[in-house]
């Protein structure tokens, strides 16, 4: 069959999903990140999702070792990293094998034919070559000898040829792929060349090799006839302001730093490394100029213990972890409840139980955060809804923790942690003043004169006074034993214990008066079904709602940021709809809370596949519920 040479056409798209997939050593994350930077610079709205194996170097060439990066970009505001790729770049057979199931028929597939050798096919588990056996018949396949063309390009580049060895030349093949994709989607390229120069500043020959490969990829697109169409996605109309791209974990780190600045308390992070939370430790460790102390403890218990000790001393104590770490911290969280000291517990949820799926996402720690302690030990819970929202959620958590003298849970997850989106940077006057004042004077008239009662509460917030060591005359002891209401002395009195349990509960419940009401998005005002979510499912749920509404159906959406306590108007919102659907990446944890607290017979939609929901999937579920 002879290839028909067609006039090259440029097609305008409103949105595109691309996925880069290769061996974990192939640099796919870097490639995806850089394509994303080009896209951000171009002005599209975007959302990304990396997907990497749990093993640092899983066996090369096997599907287990495949690392992927997906980017969704558009000319309008988008909510998710996209359900299915429109184009997949597969650097080897394993990457093809691991990703092909996600690729809808008709999609573009760019394969590195050089990697389709007998050995690689075998490692990937292919008996026959998928490039020739008809497996790929329903896709638009672009066969590119990526490795050899990269090596040729590097060798031919002036001043680079002899300076790098074959392996180094070959390693630049991800930049060839990036160049080709940049050409295909009309991305600006200056940023990437600048980035490579900076990244390899110490090895200019490597920088030159990568730039040569990048340009070669771009030029290959220009000259090859394999691509009959190129694509344009116009910049999105976004709110005016200055943007940057940010992942959830970095936004969380910045939110914590902001919390320290806004409360004017030194930040103390006590933690122990665990995926997917470690990035926050890494990030905060870099910014000691903010007076931040980071402490990598011997375990999770020591991490939170040190953070609580620092809070006792007047710092803003923070601990970061994932589900297994929360389990270890439980007893100390109970102590913090009893001590009534501010403390932030950041849980970047991952698949469980036990070690579970360390690099995959899930939101199954809600009930652990809610109830995972002995005794009646209420802890406020806040969940960000998108990567950039982690910043605001952290600031809000610090507000509640310091104002109410309580530990606060922040429930993020692997999807938010590693996903990224544009972030409209806040200006200084958009940030709240959270200045904390410590108690410095006695607050009670005792028989022998003024005394300090550490558990004499503020009548409005029920918060106790926070007097830090170093304050003369206010020396006092606190502990995990039950305390007498007011004086804080040890008390085993039954009535006092009952009162203290209820006071601690009432204090947390009272926060409902001090948080934003639950907002409902019901554009037509005619919806009978409410879809309620929390945390990272916001994007897919909202995208699902859009699809359903585009078909002329009516649905209302509400998303909880505060999970304990719920906003004061939650009952009213729930009662306004005939049906309430709660999609969650767990077996129905929010649904259990909603049913028991509000006696609403909510319907669940639950998936625990370690992956975020897809908009199409939720749209289908919504339609079913609406039409039932």
């Amino acid at each position: 069959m002879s290839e028909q040479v067609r006039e090259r056409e440029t097609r305008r798209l409103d949105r595109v999903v691309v996925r880069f997939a290769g061996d974990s050593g192939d640099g796919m994350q870097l490639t995806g990140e850089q394509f994303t930077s080009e896209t951000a610079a171009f002005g599209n709205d975007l959302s990304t999702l990396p997907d990497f194996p749990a093993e640092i170097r899983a066996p090369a060439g096997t599907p287990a070792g495949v690392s992927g990066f997906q980017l969704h970009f558009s000319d309008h505001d988008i909510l998710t990293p996209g359900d299915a790729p429109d184009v997949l770049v597969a650097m080897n057979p394993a990457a093809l094998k691991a990703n092909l199931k996600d690729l809808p028929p008709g999609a573009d597939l760019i394969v590195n034919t050089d990697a389709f050798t007998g050995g690689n096919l075998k490692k990937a588990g292919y008996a026959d070559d998928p490039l020739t056996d008809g497996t790929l018949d329903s896709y638009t396949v672009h066969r590119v000898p990526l490795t050899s063309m990269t090596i040729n390009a590097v060798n031919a580049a002036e001043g680079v040829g002899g300076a790098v060895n074959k392996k180094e030349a070959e390693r630049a093949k991800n930049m060839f792929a990036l160049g080709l994709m940049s050409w295909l989607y009309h991305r600006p390229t200056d940023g990437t060349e600048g980035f490579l120069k900076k990244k390899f500043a110490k090895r200019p020959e490597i920088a030159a090799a990568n730039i040569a490969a990048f340009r070669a990829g771009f030029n290959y697109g220009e000259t090859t006839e394999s691509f009959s169409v190129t694509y344009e996605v116009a910049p999105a109309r976004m709110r005016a302001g200055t943007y940057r791209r940010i992942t959830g974990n970095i936004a969380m780190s910045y939110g914590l730093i902001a919390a320290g600045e806004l409360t004017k308390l030194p930040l103390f992070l006590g933690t122990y490394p665990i995926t997917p939370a470690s990035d926050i430790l890494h990030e905060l460790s870099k910014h000691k100029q903010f007076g931040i102390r980071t402490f990598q403890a011997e375990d999770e218990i020591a991490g939170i213990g040190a953070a609580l000790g620092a809070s006792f001393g007047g710092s803003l104590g923070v601990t970061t972890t994932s589900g297994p770490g929360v389990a270890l911290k439980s007893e100390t969280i109970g102590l913090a409840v009893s001590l009534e000291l501010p403390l932030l517990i950041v849980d970047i949820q991952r698949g469980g139980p036990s070690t579970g799926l360390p690099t995959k996402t899930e939101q199954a720690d809600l009930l652990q955060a809610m109830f995972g302690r002995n005794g009646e030990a209420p802890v406020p819970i806040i969940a960000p809804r998108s990567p950039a929202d982690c910043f605001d959620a952290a600031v809000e958590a610090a507000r509640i923790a310091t104002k109410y003298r309580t530990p606060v849970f922040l429930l993020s997850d692997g999807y938010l942690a590693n996903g990224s989106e544009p972030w409209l940077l806040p200006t200084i006057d958009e940030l709240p003043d959270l200045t904390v004042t410590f108690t410095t004077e006695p607050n009670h008239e005792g028989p022998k004169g003024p005394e300090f009662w550490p558990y004499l509460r503020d009548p409005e917030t029920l918060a106790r006074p926070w007097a830090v060591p170093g304050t003369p005359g206010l020396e006092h002891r606190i502990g995990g034993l039950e305390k007498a209401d007011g004086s804080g002395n040890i008390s085993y009195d039954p009535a006092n214990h009952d009162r203290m349990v209820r006071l601690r509960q009432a204090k947390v419940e009272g926060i409902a008066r001090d948080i934003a009401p639950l907002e409902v998005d019901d554009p037509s005002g005619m919806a009978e079904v409410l879809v309620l979510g929390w945390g990272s499912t916001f994007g897919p749920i909202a995208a699902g709602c859009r699809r359903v509404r585009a078909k002329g159906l009516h649905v209302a959406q509400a998303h909880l940021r505060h999970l304990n306590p719920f906003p004061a108007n939650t009952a009213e919102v729930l009662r306004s709809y005939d049906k309430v659907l709660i999609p969650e990446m767990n077996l129905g944890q929010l649904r259990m809370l909603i049913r028991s607290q509000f006696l609403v017979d909510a319907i669940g939609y639950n998936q625990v596949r370690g992956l975020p929901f897809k908009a199409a999937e939720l749209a289908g579920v919504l339609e079913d519920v609406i039409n039932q």
Partner: protein
Amino acid sequence: MTVTTNGSGISNRLLDLIPATPNQLTRKDFTSDQEVRWCPGCGDYAILATVQGFLPELGIARENIAFISGIGCSSRFPYYLQTYGMHSIHGRAPAIATGLATSRPDLSVWVVTGDGDALSIGGNHLLHAMRRNVNIKILMFNNRIYGLTKGQYSPTSEVGKITKSTPFGSLDRPYNPASLALGAEATFVARSIDSDRAHLTATLRAAAEHPGTAFVEIFQNCNIFNDGAFEALKDRDTRDDATLKMVDGEPLLFGAERDKGIRRAASGGLEVCAATDENVLVHDAANLDPSQAFALSRLTGDAHGVTPIGVFRNVDMPTYDEALNDQVAQARTKLGKGDLLGLISGNETWTIN
């Protein structure tokens, strides 16, 4: 002895960061209004009295002292002291104190713990606090039993101990806390006895003077569940032959007649010899090499018939607190005080009009 800014005789570079008190404090100033609730006759009373008597010597403001404890009879200690205090959870006091001490160099932070609290449930935290050399003073009351839970054997109980949980005798070999601390390269390791007020006071003073972690094991009698555990070291008739009081820079001699000494044994360890032996060792607590201190700690107990008390090791090393706060200070010098908006903007932004 140098005279400090706070006017007391006790000084070190970290203590000098703590505000001095203009007042002459007394034992009474450190006594809280809480009723002490240990069993009558418990060794904890004597330790409390000694600590309350000693604290005024620090010469620092009372409000700049904090006692953090775990759980156990011993861990009730902070309630009875008129300082800042936290009665925390079982075994975790060293971790909590680490956060407090490193974030507040203007505080004198003490940990009170028991043999179960420190060596069983909290063993890991204890080791790591000592390894890091955090500026905290750890007082471990060793009664070789779980007091608060009513008498189970502990990690320092002798093999074969008959308790409620071991009616046929305990099976596991005990820790030697001093050996353990020296193994973790603690920079200050000492041992004293609840009833020997003068010795305990001197030991507390040495601990307070040490910058960094001071681990002090205090033999404490639990007259309810393990009475007489240290009787041989306390009984007038036996104590001089049973205890070796280590004094830095002096020969290691002991005995009612001071007729016995310590020398190196062919095995590489130490052994008891005559005081007149020309190889009697001189105690060198400041030796950076902990080998001899470790060998001394091994003398403890029945085989040698002598138990060393006093300071095993006392070496001045960089502390974790100083290093951590130095990094913060250096970052500030190098980068200036943090600029929040600058930080969050990063170096790749775009503007939409």
